[in-house]
């Protein structure tokens, strides 16, 4: 019995916590006039679907395409450059590897909003701002690469070293053992971490806002910010926009929830 009381409380807590998400969807479904009713209605009296209208009017296809390009580009760089580094940092114990790991951990904490000033100035000087989306991809990859390395490293540390040694004795080279033994066995961690990095980049804002001036190249976050403007009154539209934007993210999250939790906690929680 006690278990079910606890369960009821747990559902209550989750409900309270996730209320903002609920409110986003409900507001998106309300008609313009119902929004400004006080007290507010907790379930829309008349359903009002403005998904298509918002999608077309705001050219969301363009925004989301740009978000996707930035997220895919950053994730590709990070996976290509970071996986091997995570592996080496997990395998080799030496003073130099400790230094490299420490440097990585330090670069993990640099806030984007503080790094953007020197990045903007230096990118401007070498002409990278001519390709603003590429500039965002490069900067964002540098921002999340350390996090990817640290999380992937724990995934590689869970692969027994003896398996690779067996592969070496069986006739493989270091490189072969890395690709045929270490990577396949750590693929769960690599996959989850890549998804996390992808989702983070999909919602990137600071770099895009600062480096991309041309509206047609901006991602969905910047689009949302300019849609909101300083004094918006179209909250139904803003919430619809938000819902369109985050629903794919939430679907990925629900599908991978267990793996994400265990990837973040190095398997300590499921």
């Amino acid at each position: 019995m006690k278990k079910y009381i606890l369960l009821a409380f747990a559902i209550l807590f989750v409900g309270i916590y996730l209320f903002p998400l609920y409110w986003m969807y409900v507001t998106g479904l309300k008609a313009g006039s119902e929004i400004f009713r006080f007290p507010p209605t907790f379930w829309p009296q008349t359903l009002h679907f403005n998904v298509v209208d918002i999608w077309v009017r705001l050219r969301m296809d363009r925004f989301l395409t740009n978000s996707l390009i930035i997220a895919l580009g950053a994730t590709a760089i990070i996976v290509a450059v970071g996986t091997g580094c995570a592996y080496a940092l997990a395998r080799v114990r030496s003073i130099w590897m400790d230094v490299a790991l420490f440097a990585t951990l330090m670069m993990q904490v640099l806030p984007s909003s503080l790094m953007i000033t020197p990045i903007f100035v230096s990118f401007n000087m070498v002409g990278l701002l001519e390709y603003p989306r590429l500039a965002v991809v490069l900067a964002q990859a540098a921002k999340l690469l350390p996090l990817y390395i640290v999380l992937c490293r724990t995934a590689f540390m869970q692969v027994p070293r003896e398996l690779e040694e067996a592969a070496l004795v069986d006739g493989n080279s270091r490189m072969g053992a890395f690709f045929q033994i270490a990577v396949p066995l750590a693929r769960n961690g690599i996959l989850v971490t890549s998804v996390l990095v992808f989702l983070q980049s999909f919602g990137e804002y600071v770099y895009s806002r600062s480096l991309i001036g041309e509206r047609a190249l901006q991602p969905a976050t910047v689009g949302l910010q300019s849609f909101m403007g300083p004094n918006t009154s179209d909250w139904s539209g803003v919430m619809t926009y938000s819902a369109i934007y985050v629903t794919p993210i939430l679907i990925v999250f629900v599908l991978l929830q267990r793996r994400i939790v265990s990837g973040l906690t190095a398997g300590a929680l499921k």
Partner: protein
Amino acid sequence: MTSMAQIELEHVDKHYGQFHALKDINLTIPKGSFVALVGPSGCGKSTLLRSLAGLESISGGTMKIAGERMNGVPPRRRDVAMVFQSYALYPHMTVRENLTYSMRLNRRPKEECEKAAKDVAAITGLDELLDRYPRQLSGGQRQRVAMGRAIIRDPKAFLFDEPLSNLDAALRVHMRKEIRSLHDRLRATSVYVTHDQVEAMTMADHVVVLRDGIIEQQGAPLELYDHPANRFVAGFIGSPAMNFIDAAVSETGDAIVLEGLDAVLPIDRRLQPGRQVKAGLRPEHLRLGAPENSSIRLEIAVVEFTGAASYLSSATDPELTIFHAGRVEVKSGEVVGVSIAPELVHLFDPVTEERILAQSGSE
């Protein structure tokens, strides 16, 4: 056994920073022999084995396999096979894929791999399990896959790194015999690392005892048991362990006086009277008898029965352990007589801990 050397180590040294893991190791392993490297943990036996595999690089000396110098040669070019303590089976491959991994790396034709897998499965009793994954196998079956993966290679040498330590006691005894009979059939050179002296004694043709990176003694198993070169080997080989007692050579020079026990034991050689020695008495060499007819009289503190044998511990300082096959009618607190044949008394120098050879050359 052919006398051709398959593995030769000359003055091999290994340092890890300040730590000197292997010190001037000289070892020759004849083709087709079964050699056990044994010693307490941290003695360097695993480091030596891993150096043979090429998983560790040596800091000095030369290492040859089948006459070829191996210093700096990567593992994949050494043509040795290794069985790991954890078996190191690739969890994402089936038994068949595990067995044929090395052949596939060498791009051997599919039919050849399949035939080899079948043959090895027959030898190791894995016929029914070829399509299983390692996680679906029992401990003993995993052990066999690890063996099979080595056998399929037909390598220049087999290296075993404590392969039985993850098995329960009964299975361990069984696999011990199985590995040995496999070796007798294949006649491949094998190097076997273990911390269990019983495994080393029962399986190997040649036992190498290591401590702190030094070879303390090497030889045939019974040679080590009968003539341990020093106190460490004497204490390490044999179970239960040898009793050590401080003693002095008697005035006549042909007996020793055991300190703390007030007993005189005749010895089979002549030593300088008054010399301090360390006497080594194996528990199984001590014979129980009536107190008045025996050279040592002891009060017994604890008697343990295993059914087949009895273990008696004395109440004296130093304590003596006595092994008696069968049962004894001795109770705690009783005084018993113990004697030992003169030729079975081992003597060591108390300072150098080396075996004391007879001055007359009778040994």
